[in-house]
């Protein structure tokens, strides 16, 4: 059976239950699909029938005064942005990929973007979920309030589990007030030795509280029309008065130039289709070293790029499709690195990553507890029951 041979469309949680129950009855694996943008992310799954959630969508509950929103998994981030913008609020998650990606996929993959610098990752935003586990049971975890320690934290466990423990059908997220002023500045990073470290130190010491602090290499900068050298993008937000003071502070750090408002959306959608992507991370104090190590990969191929969430110490490396040298170097680097998270790789490359997953035995037990027959996205995380 191939993924296209058998497709189920779920419009309700009951549909999901029926689909999973059917899968259980037929011992037939299920590939969970939102809008299908990220099907090339994660390890290749075994042949499975697709369970499409894009029509399991819509906002279930939104009381602006509570700063929480409950939506079905197939609701797109763009739709949530539109609904919340009317009340000067936003869901501060900006994962890389098309802007109409779904909330379900964002939570299931725990995908974070530059705003994680200030607002944290999906694990910090998700307050509660409804999901259908591998034995077709509907479970709820967490709740719709911003603080909750009732019971064991299945919300965190399912966030970032890539659908392998259950099909997430509904999610409650924490919203934030949109800053009155939201503007971005770019500072060129000189190429000389130690310049990056000096800039990072200066920004660290400056009286600023950026929403995002993203280092962009020259090639990506060019693609984003930010010039032809490495730049530091600094997103400032807050009241007029607060942003004015921060703007002044940034100007003392370097030659800050106004960046176009659309630069963040452009960055999110800048990965060429079919790219291989790996994130490397280490302590934030070593981000310059991590950046230079990544440079050794990107310098191999004309189309390779890299950018980094400086405050979090994460460098994201994008190798263009069909550039074997870059992809091979990327895979080798990922295999050697202490902490590398491959997002997308050509299917044949995953076998080169032999580093065992930490706590593999515990992970297997978790998988067995929620999807004992290994029917949900089988193999995508490399955790076999």
């Amino acid at each position, binding site marked *: 059976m191939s993924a296209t041979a058998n497709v189920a469309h779920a419009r309700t949680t009951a549909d999901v239950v029926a689909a999973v129950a059917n899968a259980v009855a037929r011992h037939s694996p299920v590939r969970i699909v939102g809008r299908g943008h990220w099907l090339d992310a994660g390890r290749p799954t075994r042949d499975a029938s697709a369970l499409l959630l894009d029509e399991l969508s819509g906002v279930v509950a939104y009381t602006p005064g509570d700063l929480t929103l409950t939506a079905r998994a197939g609701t797109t981030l763009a739709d949530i942005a539109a609904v919340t913008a009317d009340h000067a609020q936003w869901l501060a998650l900006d994962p890389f990929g098309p802007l109409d990606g779904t909330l379900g996929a964002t939570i299931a993959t725990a995908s974070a973007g530059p705003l994680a610098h200030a607002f944290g990752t999906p694990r910090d935003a998700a307050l509660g979920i409804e999901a259908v586990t591998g034995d077709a049971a509907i479970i709820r975890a967490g709740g719709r309030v911003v603080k909750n320690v009732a019971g064991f934290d299945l919300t965190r466990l399912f966030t970032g589990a890539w659908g392998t423990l259950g099909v997430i059908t509904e999610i409650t997220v924490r919203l934030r007030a949109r800053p009155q002023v939201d503007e971005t500045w770019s500072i060129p990073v000189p190429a000389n030795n130690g310049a990056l470290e000096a800039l990072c130190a200066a920004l660290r010491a400056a009286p600023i509280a950026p929403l995002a602090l993203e280092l962009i290499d020259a090639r990506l900068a060019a693609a984003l029309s930010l010039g032809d050298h490495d730049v530091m993008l600094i997103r400032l937000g807050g009241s007029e008065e607060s942003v004015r*003071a921060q703007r002044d502070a940034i100007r003392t750090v370097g030659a800050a130039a106004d960046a176009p408002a659309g630069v963040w959306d452009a960055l999110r959608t800048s990965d060429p289709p079919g790219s291989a992507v790996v994130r490397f991370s280490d302590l934030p104090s070593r981000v310059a070293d991590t950046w230079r190590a990544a440079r050794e990969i990107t310098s191999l191929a004309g189309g390779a790029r890299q950018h980094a969430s400086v405050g979090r110490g994460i460098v994201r490396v994008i190798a263009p499709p069909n550039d074997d040298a870059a992809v091979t170097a990327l895979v080798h680097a990922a295999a050697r690195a202490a902490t590398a998270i491959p997002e997308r790789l050509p299917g044949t490359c995953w076998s080169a990553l032999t580093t065992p997953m930490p706590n593999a035995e515990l992970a297997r037990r978790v998988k067995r507890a929620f999807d004992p027959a290994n029917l949900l996205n089988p193999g995508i995380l490399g955790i076999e029951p």
Partner: protein
Amino acid sequence: MTRDELAIALRAIVGPRGVLSRPAELLPFSADGLPTYHRPPKLAVFPSTREQVIDVIRLFAREQWPFVPRGAGTGLSAGALAGGDAVIVGLNRLTRILSLDPVNRLAVVEPGAVNVSLTRAAGAFGLYYAPDPSSQSACTIGGNVAENSGGPHCLKYGVTVNHVVAVTVLLPDGEVVSLGGAHGETPGYDLLGAFVGSEGCFGIALDVTVRLSPNPPAVRTMLADFTSIDAGARATSAIIASGILPAALEMMDGPTIRAVEASIYAAGYPADAEAVLLIELDGLEAGLDADARRVEQLCLDAGARTVRTARDERERARLWQGRKKAFGAMGRVAPALVVQDAVIPRTRLPDVLRTIHDIAQRWRIQVCNVFHAGDGNLHPNIGYDPRDSDATDRVHHAMREIMRACVDAGGTITGEHGIGLDKLEYMPLIFSPASLDAQCRLRAVFDPDRRANPDKVVPQHACREWTQAPAARAAATVPA
């Protein structure tokens, strides 16, 4: 192995001063910070080193003996009580701060390190540990991890789980695993996120790596007083809806104010007020005064009599002191105190507080509300005399009604105190049987024998695996 034989074996590991076995000496361990529950343990063991903790737990694993980890015993859900054969494992002697990295703002601490000691040690570098439960002067980091503790400043800065980056866990079977990591992202399931808040049911934290935060460059602490709870609740909703995110937004009602003002921690709250809001704004200096003026106007619009801002650090400390010691100050109101903890959507504050007031009147009890209003995290506390059985009954009826009112408003049964023993009966109010069973399955991943803090958090009858023994129990025991 009998209890006495176990005591001998434990003494061989931790020495004679590390084991308590006589009834009188076990008495102080029969309750935690919620003394309405009493369960004298069979034994209590106090390891002084990480190696001793491991040896003790491995002994329990060999003997299939249940145990209950305990930090400072300041918890408020009767979670650190050991019933049946369970032995208390006191971690309060492992108090060291193992390392402190001011550049990456990380610290590694032993589980018995006291919360405030971390902030003291980090202070030299202009850093602090953000989660600040009211018991921070006594509670331990290990206990905070177990309960996923909150505190007033968690409104802006998040609760314990947002500040823990790694934990070395001793599983109940004696295996040591590292969850999370300080050196970047961790692949696979968020086992760290699952461990934080697991109330001692998943194992023992041998060390905890926490994130430290830089001291905010500027702070404004404000006190607004109101002649009705309703007005205070409306002000809270208005501030949250305005988009300003205070570092803390705390509310105290009239009875609480008067208890505090009668204690040695009198904070200068107006004694005739029916509600005060303690509001703290922090962040960059620029723009903070403008935010403070907006907050002041919102309070006045909601009916505040006065809004004043602390002029200096001393006045700020005094205003906070009253809030932090409020719970203890109620000790002078009545000989026993039920401390409750529930969360509601913040727009529901005015009507739920009215409902609580009505419930209190109907049952003729005195409710003192002191809580994290900004989070919607209520703490209705009820003082009573436990020797009066009629009063005790009324208190328990009222409590149940209050809990149900919070759940009906879309809330939850605990925001920071945990389930422990105290909230077990409320779990079915918010979770379906399947959802409770899912929690049992997760527990079985870490502790298939259910020996770590047994009988807590999830009602045992909710676990299908226990009655039907299907998938999860098999899953937990099938070899890989």
